[in-house]
């Protein structure tokens, strides 16, 4: 009897590789089996063996935690549910291309009459995957080579290597990821990298070569990241015409910093959320572990989302940050904050608010920015349920300020300074969600409170961003 049910059941919830859609399958399965459920649900069973087949380089002890829960099942439905959860957990490890579950009655000498065996048939990912891209743009061509070694040592370790060779710049990144067995969210990452950035708003070119170690762990509702980073920074002028203030910052420096990030994210989506809140607090202490740069940097990000009338969403966000140089040395242009652009204070040029010298923006040691948005679906909802859901229209009101503080003055003076010369803007536009990592915005903006030296974008502004106000 058991054989018949189990054999016919097993492929049902286990099709596909997709990680997120199987709840529907489960429901469908349950209704289908309703006639037999009365017999099965009350019947006690014992899971005698759980096997994993198809293991090559993956170490069996690494998977023990993920599948051990299956042993606690008391009836057949329970076995299937728990097996399904175990399958999800296995797939999440990033070791397997596919996992199938087989439930069968126990056989052999010690088999109990109500004993079941659960077998996970896994297909491992290839030892190495590679990718090759070429990119052309902005007077520069580059070739990007990527190598990935999933599950390199058999316990979920992942090594990735990316190398980009361009006509102007080369950059690379090497990273090694190691999760704690049985607790995938607790993991360690090591990075080695070289990146080059060009910042035309500051006429600045920066080359960073660095190593970092990062420890991630969840704690109650929050996720924490502890990081140490040692980076050799080389700053230079982007052009001969760069202002002397930027020229003075040229040269080499070493930053060694400890940082801690705490985040609570209850939003239902990272890019176009309907409900939920995000709070992220980041603090960085540089100089304590050596290096030339010494400062304490605090950065806070808060976002609240609420469903509003007719499928629209009301969203409010607030950012703030402060950089305190330690030991009398002025802060570096590479460490300071920048504000403005199509996804922060809209209506202003990219990072073009605040202190500047001959048109090169030098950044500030303190900033705040806030935004109020009303997101609505597209008018008349074209492409509903499909392509159209990637778009929203929005109305926004942004405000912010970026300046340098004199740390001899008290907090009152600081607050006063932050409240002076507030830049703000309002407008409306279109938002397009790109995957679940970035968004594109096309806005009509009206900047207000423009200060001398700010670069504005009065009218249509287009831009993309990962972080948005």
């Amino acid at each position, binding site marked *: 009897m058991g054989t018949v049910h189990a054999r016919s059941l097993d492929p049902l919830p286990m099709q596909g590789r997709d990680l997120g859609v199987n709840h529907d399958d489960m429901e469908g399965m349950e209704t289908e089996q309703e006639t037999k459920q009365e017999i099965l649900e009350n019947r006690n069973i014992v899971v005698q063996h759980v096997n994993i087949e198809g293991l090559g380089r993956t170490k069996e002890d690494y998977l023990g935690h993920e599948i051990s829960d299956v042993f606690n099942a008391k009836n057949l439905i329970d076995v299937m549910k728990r097996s399904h959860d175990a399958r999800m957990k296995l797939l999440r490890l990033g070791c397997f291309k596919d996992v199938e579950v087989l439930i069968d009655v126990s056989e052999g000498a010690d088999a109990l009459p109500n004993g079941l065996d659960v077998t996970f048939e896994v297909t491992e990912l290839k030892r190495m995957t590679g990718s090759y891209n070429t990119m052309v743009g902005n007077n520069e061509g580059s070739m990007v080579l990527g190598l990935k070694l999933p599950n390199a040592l058999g316990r979920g370790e992942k090594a990735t290597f990316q190398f980009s060779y361009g006509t102007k710049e080369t950059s690379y990144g090497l990273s090694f990821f190691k999760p704690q067995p049985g607790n995938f969210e607790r993991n360690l990452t090591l990075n080695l990298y070289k990146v080059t950035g060009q910042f035309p708003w500051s006429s600045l070119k920066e080359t960073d070569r660095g190593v970092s170690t990062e420890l991630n762990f969840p704690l109650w509702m929050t996720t924490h990241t502890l990081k140490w980073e040692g980076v050799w920074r080389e700053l230079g002028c982007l052009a001969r015409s760069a202002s*002397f203030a930027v020229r003075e910052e*040229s040269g*080499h*420096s070493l930053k060694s910093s400890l940082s801690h990030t705490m985040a609570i994210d209850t939003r239902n989506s990272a890019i176009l959320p309907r409900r939920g809140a995000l709070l992220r607090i980041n603090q960085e202490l540089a100089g304590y572990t050596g290096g030339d740069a010494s400062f304490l940097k605090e950065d806070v990000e808060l976002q609240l989302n609420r469903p509003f009338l007719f499928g629209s969403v009301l969203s409010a966000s607030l950012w703030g940050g402060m950089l305190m140089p330690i030991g009398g040395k002025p802060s570096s242009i590479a460490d300071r904050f920048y504000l403005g652009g199509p996804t922060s204070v809209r209506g202003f040029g990219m990072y073009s608010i605040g202190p500047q010298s*001959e048109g090169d923006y030098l950044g500030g040691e303190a900033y705040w920015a806030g935004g109020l948005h009303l997101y609505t679906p597209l008018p008349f909802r074209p492409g509903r349920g499909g392509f159209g859901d990637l778009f929203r229209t929005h109305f926004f009101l942004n405000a912010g300020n970026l300046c340098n503080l004199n740390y001899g003055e008290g907090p009152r003076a600081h607050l006063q300074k932050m409240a002076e010369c507030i830049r703000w803007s309002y407008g409306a536009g279109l938002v397009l969600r790109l995957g679940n990592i970035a968004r594109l915005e096309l806005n009509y903006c009206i900047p207000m409170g423009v200060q001398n030296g700010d670069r504005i974008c009065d009218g249509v502004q287009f831009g993309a961003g990962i972080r948005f106000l």
Partner: protein
Amino acid sequence: MSLAAEAFVSQMAAAEPWPENATLYQPLSDEQILLSDNASSLAVQAYLKMCALPVRVSCRANAEFMSPSGKVPFIHVGNQVVSELGPIVQFTKAKGHSLSEGLDDVQRAEMKAYMELVNNMLLTAELYIQWCDDSTAGEISRPRYSSPYSWPLSHILAYQKQWEVRRKMNAIGWAGKSLEQVYEDVNECCQALSQRLGTQLYFFNKQPTELDALVFGHIFTILTTRLTSDALAERVKGFSNLLSFCKRIEQTFFEEADQSSASSLHSKGPSLL
């Protein structure tokens, strides 16, 4: 900025008079600067003093990286940044200050040739001794060059610089030379300069030119800088007319300037007198 626009800006700058706040940037004079950079910086300072153009000397640990050509010294005049003696001479000429105006074409060509000789022989020899002689590189050049930086960046930058200079030496065929051969080259160069100078006040009669500034910068610095051995200074000391030439320039342009205005900064340091 396009080339045409840049040329236009420099034309505009040329029309402006020499400002009071002109500044010369060089590495930290006490703990960082090396013989070759010090010589180049002194040459520019001497040149500007000969032109009677006031300049304030500012020492920065990152002077080399601030310079648009990656070489020190450089001057910041108005909103223009110009590095190295050659371009600075051109720049002052555009502003109407020149020391070689009175020379005829033959003399000017001769002056250029001697300047090339100094740059190719004396400067290259200084670089060779600094970075290719292991004891000088290890005891003086690397520790001094990297003094503003913290470990491990100090090591990386010092070895990177050494590697860069050695690669240059390879390219110009100096890598195979022994220290003795380099000293011999310095000797020959000084011989040539000494013969050209003869008993004159300056290389071209009674008026100093940029060649005088350049020779003064190098000879003076070689004589007053302590290295692991005295061999280099000893070679130069053999030429008495070069010695008195250096003393004369020091007296005329540095001592007098110091007496006349207390505010004028001179970072020349040691003295021959």
